[in-house]
């Protein structure tokens, strides 16, 4: 087999050195009844060519050649070529977590750059090396806020990504962490700050909002922060569309920022792998989950980097750790790092401006359901037909329409969430608008 690098004579010599006559003998110590006494019921091995063919056939059963207006947490942005070039290097692809700093300075240096750029983007003081994704970063941020405040109740806006809220519910259930939702304003799609104020109580340790929120609307971070802080809670700001940070004021009033970086050159890949982040204020460093890279020197006095503050982590702290996370999403974070480098200070802004322009062009042809300010997504109400019927009609034109919202928001069952990015073409927007309007 091509992945097994031994000739028969080498294998024989090794078996001899081990004092056994066959490989099976190496398992002779396993108790009777434990061993599988039949072959696995799996097909025999196949060639590279056949593997490529298999996955091409599967891909052919999926959407190709469609224009898409789906966003809702996963965005179609162009991936600069350098991203694949860099992450295809075996030195990044096939190395482990950088525990041995002397031979992992490549990974460690890029993570330090990543942490720095995430801080610059979010207005926070520290950022970790990544979480699994945005959805799991939310409960991690909630648990962090609960530890920091000693208060167990969590308030989360209904306009946070519904699947993120579901993940939070799963994690929170057994930790004595009641989670309560507060609403959005029916006209604007913005946070209902009065509802937030009403629902605050002295036991609330975290208020969680998303901006731009699930409807694409830019939220009032400052006002939410003021309410949370006045009641002694921390404000967690979530983002799913990282490109928005090229243009939007960073959520500097937040105590914790929990986000998803899929927009930074990560292919949608049917839902993963992506990369989440947690960033925070300096005073909460010791409550952070996940890995952190710090700057230091080597014994010759040269700048060097290493994993640090690991007394927060499971391999040292075990059941008292800040999180159980071990493997994170390092290579995906590297993709995001290359993406941020390629676009840089000017490019990220220009990219965000293009997204803004495309979405506003499309919105100009339709009637947005909410009057709040939006970035590259917005909600429209389906007129006459249901969102599902409209999407069916669009498929005939090789267009995948937006996300019908009924499955997550029964009160918006007649609405669709549409997204336009720099990759959305004018002709497709015009075609969509004809069917949708």
């Amino acid at each position, binding site marked *: 087999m091509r992945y097994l690098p031994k000739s028969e004579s080498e294998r024989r010599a090794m078996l001899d050195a081990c004092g056994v006559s066959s490989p099976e003998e190496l398992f002779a110590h396993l108790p009777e009844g434990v061993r599988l006494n039949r072959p696995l019921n799996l097909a025999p091995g196949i060639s590279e060519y056949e593997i490529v063919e298999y996955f091409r056939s599967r891909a052919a*059963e999926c959407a190709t050649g469609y224009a898409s207006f789906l966003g809702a947490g996963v965005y179609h942005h162009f991936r600069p070529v350098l991203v694949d070039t860099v992450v295809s290097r075996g030195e990044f692809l096939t190395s482990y977590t950088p525990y041995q700093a002397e031979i992992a300075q490549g990974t460690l240096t890029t993570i330090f750059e990543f942490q720095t750029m995430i801080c610059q983007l979010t207005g926070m003081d520290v950022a970790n090396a990544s979480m699994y994704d945005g959805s799991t970063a939310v409960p991690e941020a909630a648990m962090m806020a609960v530890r920091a405040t000693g208060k167990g109740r969590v308030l989360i806006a209904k306009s946070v990504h519904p699947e993120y809220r579901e993940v939070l519910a799963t994690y929170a259930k057994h930790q004595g962490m009641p989670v309560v939702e507060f609403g959005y304003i029916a006209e604007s799609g913005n946070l209902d700050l009065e509802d937030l104020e009403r629902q605050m109580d002295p036991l609330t340790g975290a208020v969680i909002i998303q901006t731009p929120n699930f409807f694409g609307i830019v939220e009032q971070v400052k006002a939410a922060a003021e309410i949370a802080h006045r009641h002694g809670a921390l404000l967690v700001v979530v983002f799913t569309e990282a490109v928005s940070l090229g243009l939007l004021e960073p959520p500097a009033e937040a105590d914790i920022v929990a986000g998803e970086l899929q927009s930074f050159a990560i292919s949608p890949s049917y839902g993963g792998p992506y990369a989440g982040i947690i960033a925070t204020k300096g005073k909460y460093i010791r409550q952070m989950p996940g890995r952190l890279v710090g700057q230091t020197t080597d014994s010759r006095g040269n700048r060097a980097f290493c994993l640090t503050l690991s007394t927060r982590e499971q391999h040292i702290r075990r059941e008292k750790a800040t999180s159980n996370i071990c493997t994170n999403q390092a290579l995906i974070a590297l993709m995001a790092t290359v993406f941020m480098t390629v676009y840089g200070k000017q*490019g990220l802004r220009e990219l965000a401006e293009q997204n803004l322009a495309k979405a506003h062009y499309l919105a100009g042809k339709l009637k947005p359901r909410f009057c709040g300010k939006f970035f590259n997504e917005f909600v429209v109400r389906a007129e006459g037909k249901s969102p599902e019927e409209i999407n069916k009609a669009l498929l005939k034109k090789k267009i995948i329409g937006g996300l019908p919202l009924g499955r997550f928001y029964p009160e918006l069952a007649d609405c669709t969430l549409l997204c336009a990015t720099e990759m959305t073409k004018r002709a497709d927007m015009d075609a969509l608008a004809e069917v949708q309007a």
Partner: protein
Amino acid sequence: MIKKVTNHLSQNEALLFERSSPGKKAYQLPELDIPAVDAAEALGAENVRQEIAGFPEVSEVEALRHFTRLSTWNYAIDYGMYPLGSCTMKYNPRINEVVARTEGLAWAHPYQPESLSQGCMQVMACLEAALAEICGMDAVTLQPAAGAHGELTGILLIRALLEKRGNPRLKILIPDSAHGTNPATAAIAGYAVENIKSSETGGVDLTALEQLVTGDVAALMVTNPNTLGVFENNIVRVAEILHKKGAMLYMDGANMNALVGIARPGDFGVDVMHLNLHKTFSTPHGGGGPGAGPVAVKKVLEPFLPTPRLKRSGRRLAFDYKRKRSIGRVKAYYGNFGVLVRALAYIQAHGGPGLRNATMDAVLNAVYVRKALESYYDLPYQSPNMHEVVFSDDRQAKLGVRTGDIAKRLIDYGFHPYTVSFPMIVHGALMIEPTETEGKLEIDSFIDAMISIAHEIETDPQMVKNAPYNTRTSRVDEVTAARKPVLRWKPA
């Protein structure tokens, strides 16, 4: 004698921020095909940021060189043996990378219609079935993102079942040899952790277990083979003791590379387990992730699996979201799909018989290393080992050299170190896992290096304590890094 490596020019490289100069660009956007929009007007002036202070500005060639230069400062499987115990650092087949980038799969949006996602769903269904067969279990969820995430999913499943039976119970038992994620996970799932001391042979102590399993115990989390690389010979008995008291057996499947095609956890009493596709199934570690941590369960636990579940409806696949007893979601969407694609490609390449051969070579390599090194390094547990072998630095410590020093010296010989100081039940552990994708030449050269270091320690222990010498970065001051944390770059 150092034979594997020779020094070679290594490029210096500044941080991106230090290379930046205003106006440099590595991008070009297309001309807008629609009118531009005034950001302040569309978003509200108060919502529009100033420039992103400090953000890099470099040209394309500089960006490429930056990351290429940094990459050469890493060691990687592509350079040679990477015997990190418990991590299963095997060759990452490149075909996996190619198929994961197939356009219809890589660009599939998780919310695109199911009718236009059948290929993705088929990949997931095939992988679920293959993993269930490999583990001897009845159902598999692919949603968890890594091993620790799988552990959490598994323990929540146990909790849900016990709750339905009337009492979720209070404690999870965890051997003192376990990985740190096990106790950390139990705590997040709302359980108290009770440590169970390993027996003299390093396994689960049956007498201790019988005493500890009370009506308060929800489950035992066991790693099998355990973190010494030793199969739990009493595993069937362990399962019986737990089951008799209504408790469950969770298996950390990080070490499945010792068992695939040889023995199945489902056949020896395990109720729920996770796999690490980034270990056993060859998906790349990427400097720390991404991974995938599918969870396999027996039938009784199936109703509680995370939503959504794949189901067949006629010739089509569909997602079932209406599962009343589910623990809920552990992650948005369906899992680290791109990692799942790679794992399925790996299983297809080997096929059933091939996977078993791979397991046999993995164990052969570890036993071979043990035989070659056991007269140089102390072997605290004598039971037959499987895919990895754990020595202690007992002999070398007498001369003041610890496992961490030996590891650093190994770097000079051109190898990545083994896992240092884990498991905790071995004082000064050297945990070596060669994996099946190392040939005889590479392993012999590793053995030579380890023997040579053992001799060096006898003649010049101080030299070993200051290693490595051949790296561009010498020993790193981790203490200062933690004492005065500098976690981001700032302009001087």
